């Protein structure tokens, strides 16, 4: 019996091509008011969070997700938004807040709010952290489309992200609610 020759690594062609966009983690909450991504790896340049979520609430919709970094709940955030509500466009901004927000969340457990959040240079210790997100929901007669921005006035690298329902949220999430974190190499 002849010995089958081995394959040297140098003989392999057509190397697997991997890109710069990696999935890091997904949270599918069931009953917690806060979703947290912790121990975020430092190996990327940018982060993207992709959200599809809705939560039952005790107040009339819409309401917001409140976002903080590294457990910082002090007045170290600013937030702004450009939004359309189906009848007019408007803009809003405020500083010295305890969070920035993702707008808006509908309370229906079948109509989901979608958001794509981009955070550039999240590891950079020379910059405050600026986020940009496109989010919204439509509920066949109501809804919002929003371009949100936020700033965390800290030069610390982001190691955790918490997303919390604001007051009125019940913690009861719609099925298939998911918060997915991605890293982008640079």
């Amino acid at each position, binding site marked *: 019996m002849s010995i089958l020759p081995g394959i040297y690594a140098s003989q392999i062609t057509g190397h697997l091509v991997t890109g710069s966009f990696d999935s890091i983690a997904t949270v599918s909450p069931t009953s917690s008011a806060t979703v947290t991504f912790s121990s975020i790896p430092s190996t990327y340049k940018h982060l993207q969070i992709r*959200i599809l979520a809705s939560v039952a609430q005790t107040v009339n919709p819409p309401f917001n997700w409140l976002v903080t970094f590294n457990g910082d709940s002090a007045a170290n955030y600013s937030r702004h938004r450009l939004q359309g509500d189906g009848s007019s466009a408007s803009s809003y901004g405020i500083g010295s807040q305890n969070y920035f927000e993702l707008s808006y969340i509908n309370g229906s457990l079948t109509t989901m709010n979608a958001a794509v959040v981009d955070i550039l240079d999240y590891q950079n210790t020379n910059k405050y952290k600026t986020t940009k997100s496109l*989010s919204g929901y439509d509920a066949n007669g109501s809804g919002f489309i929003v371009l949100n921005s936020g700033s965390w006035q800290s030069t610390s690298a982001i190691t955790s992200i918490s997303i919390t329902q604001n007051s009125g949220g019940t913690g009861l999430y719609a099925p298939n609610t998911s918060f997915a974190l991605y890293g982008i190499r640079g």
Partner: protein
Amino acid sequence: MAAGSTYTPIATYTVSSAQAAYTFSSIPSTYTDLVVVINGTFGAFNTLFMQFNSDTSSNNYSDTGMNGSGSAASSYRGTSGNASGTGGMGATRSTTILQIQNYSNATTYKTTLWRANSPSDYVQTGVSLWRNTAAINSITFTANATTFQAGSTLTLYGITAA
């Protein structure tokens, strides 16, 4: 935490002669989100409509949008339609980018975020709803009252969450 490279091209189509519509069919259910990039021209500026799973007559579509005309910012709403409006495309090179998240779940209605860019006409963004809990397996894009011109491209990508 698990990490994995994602953002995978699924299908691409280039229009060879003017046509009113195109369908991505047999979309695999193995991704988490879909991203569609449409780059091209219409015969004249008009709405780009989107329908799922050949649902063309259910009145199950609605949308909320925001427009910039070049002189005014505004917002609009469409309700109980037979298709979702996802902004417009024009006779000069236009680009529409759509994000369809958790498209293959069979529990919730389907929400799409979109950005539409017709530089000679409008810049737009919006969110569309399909009031059907079925998993999405096909997407049809239709040029309202006009046609996709030759050279237009439609590309579908899949993103897989960890």
